[in-house]
């Protein structure tokens, strides 16, 4: 290898420091790089998780940068890499490349503003990094609203944390499920049904939305009812990725590379991008 050059495709080792089942299909992991260095990410970024021989998968970093050298992920079991990692335990090693991609504007646009987090399904996983960041630096931000929706109550993630956040001053947490199960007393309906309970001042609010592809259109429609400016709405998009570093071409959304120009986009930047939403 040419000396001095770093190899963007070469993972480094990280060790699983905690692993626990969250729902039937989701597992929580915390990792530490074997080099001892922090990963150095900002909220909204992702990393490529390697299980050598099995493959690689882009996974959002779910924790804020503040968490003492470890970083956390929540992984849904769906294919080769994700199935395999679900069988792994504390102390086992994986490969990591990253962090990659754009970040939620926690240090720029979001500063001093009211924040609405709209988390549908797994969307809470990447958003949690920003939520944690906001909570850790609470004084830098205004009112916080967290809307969270899942298909069923048993698919809810970070229930304790949602409770904890709800207890913080000027933080509202609203939850909903598409389909109720026994014991569920909360709201039933898709996430957009929560908007009737929210007050948004379009002049001083930033909204972050993450969820399954079909959901964006509807959530944005709701926000536009509040006359929110498009550049104040942020989304995070997912595409097929092979390299994570803007070369392999798989994650292109029209002219944008999801891995480098995203995954976090301001809605203003993508509203005219036909393949985006």
């Amino acid at each position: 290898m040419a000396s001095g050059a770093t190899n963007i495709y070469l993972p480094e080792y990280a060790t699983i420091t905690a692993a626990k089942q969250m729902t039937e299909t989701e597992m929580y992991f915390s990792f530490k790089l074997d080099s001892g260095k922090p990963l150095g990410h900002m909220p909204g970024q992702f990393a490529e998780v390697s299980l050598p021989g099995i493959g690689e998968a882009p996974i959002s970093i779910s924790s804020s940068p503040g968490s003492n050298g470890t970083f956390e992920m929540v992984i849904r079991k769906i294919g080769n890499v994700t199935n395999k990692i679900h069988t792994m335990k504390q102390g086992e090693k994986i490969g990591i490349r990253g962090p990659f991609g754009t970040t939620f504007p926690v240090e720029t646009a979001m500063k001093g503003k009211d924040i609405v987090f709209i988390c549908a399904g797994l969307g809470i996983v990447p958003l949690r990094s920003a939520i944690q960041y906001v909570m850790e630096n609470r004084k830098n931000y205004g009112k916080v609203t967290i809307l969270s929706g899942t298909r069923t109550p048993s698919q809810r993630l970070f229930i304790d944390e949602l409770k904890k956040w709800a207890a913080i001053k000027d933080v509202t947490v609203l939850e909903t499920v598409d389909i109720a199960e026994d014991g569920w007393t909360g709201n039933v309906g898709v996430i957009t049904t929560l908007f009737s309970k929210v007050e948004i001042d379009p002049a001083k609010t930033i909204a972050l939305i993450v969820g399954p592809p079909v959901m964006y259109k509807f959530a944005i429609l709701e926000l536009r009812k509040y006359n929110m400016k498009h550049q104040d709405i942020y989304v995070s998009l997912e595409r097929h990725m092979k390299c994570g570093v803007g070369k392999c071409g798989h994650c292109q959304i029209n002219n944008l590379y999801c891995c480098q120009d995203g995954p976090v986009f301001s809605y203003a930047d993508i509203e005219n991008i036909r393949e985006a939403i």
Partner: protein
Amino acid sequence: MGTKKVSQKDFEKWVEKLIGLQKVFGVQSKDDKYEFGALLKAENLRLDYDITILPPKKYFLPSTEQLFSFGESGFNSSVDGEPFILFGVHPYDFVAIRQLDVLFSMKNNDVYYQTRRNAATIIVCDVENISENAFSGFLGFDHVEKGFDLLVTKTGSDYLVESGSDKGKKLLSLMENAVDAQAADISKRSEKWKKNRELLKKQLLKANVNELPAALGKAYDHKIWNEKAEKCFSCGSCNLVCPTCYCFDVQDDFGWDLKSGERTRSWDGCMIENFATVAGDHNFRKNKSDRYRHRYYRKGKYVPEKIGEIACVGCGRCISACVARIANPVEIFNAVAEA
């Protein structure tokens, strides 16, 4: 140093010398077509070729290459940095390499590409015979005046050889009985360039290249995408033979111990059905027409917006490679420009 003139015989001697010096990959015949391959004898070199089946990008981005191996000792990557000479690259193909140079170093460096690229000495040669689908003349990619290590032009029974880099200079200094080219020789070459510009217009491009990104910008819903894509096999042939296509797939395989193994990457293509499919079988470009459009947008809009130059060099390979006969960029560009 500038430009030298040398006879056919001494030119061949020089080629033979280069073969003794370094690994040389040059254009040779394959049936009634041509390909780049390891050059073992100077007499096999066919600088009179019209076009090669595959572009020379394969020497920088091989169709399959190992990214790294893994095992007890961790992740190990190595890439062959042995110097080599790439002999007989046509100007349009050289333009494509220049584009890849930019793309593979943009924002972050691809060491595999870069190592090979640094190891290469590229000898460009001017076009002698025109391939049936060429249109580089419309794009200004019919000849190049800089960037190469050496530029070879056949003028009558002699060769003009210009060096454009230190690497080139070094090789040129090995040439025997070369004389400095005179103004008359240089103007012969300019003549050839002028002629080639007109000859390399087999496919009639009417669209204005500079306005292409804007024209494509307005043509997202043009009916041509559907019309053409209906006939598409999603075979990716147009991608794979294209000198400016560089998308790749990444795969892992184990060794027999099921612990060690390797990660490789190989050419991929945005025309292939599952190029944008994610786990759970959601395909972001499910329709053939979406994939079909994407390819031409990359050539005519997306990549140009990044590098400031149209990302089709007018080689016409895709036109011949497409069994369905639907992959002619000129047809597409003309149609969207007209709309």
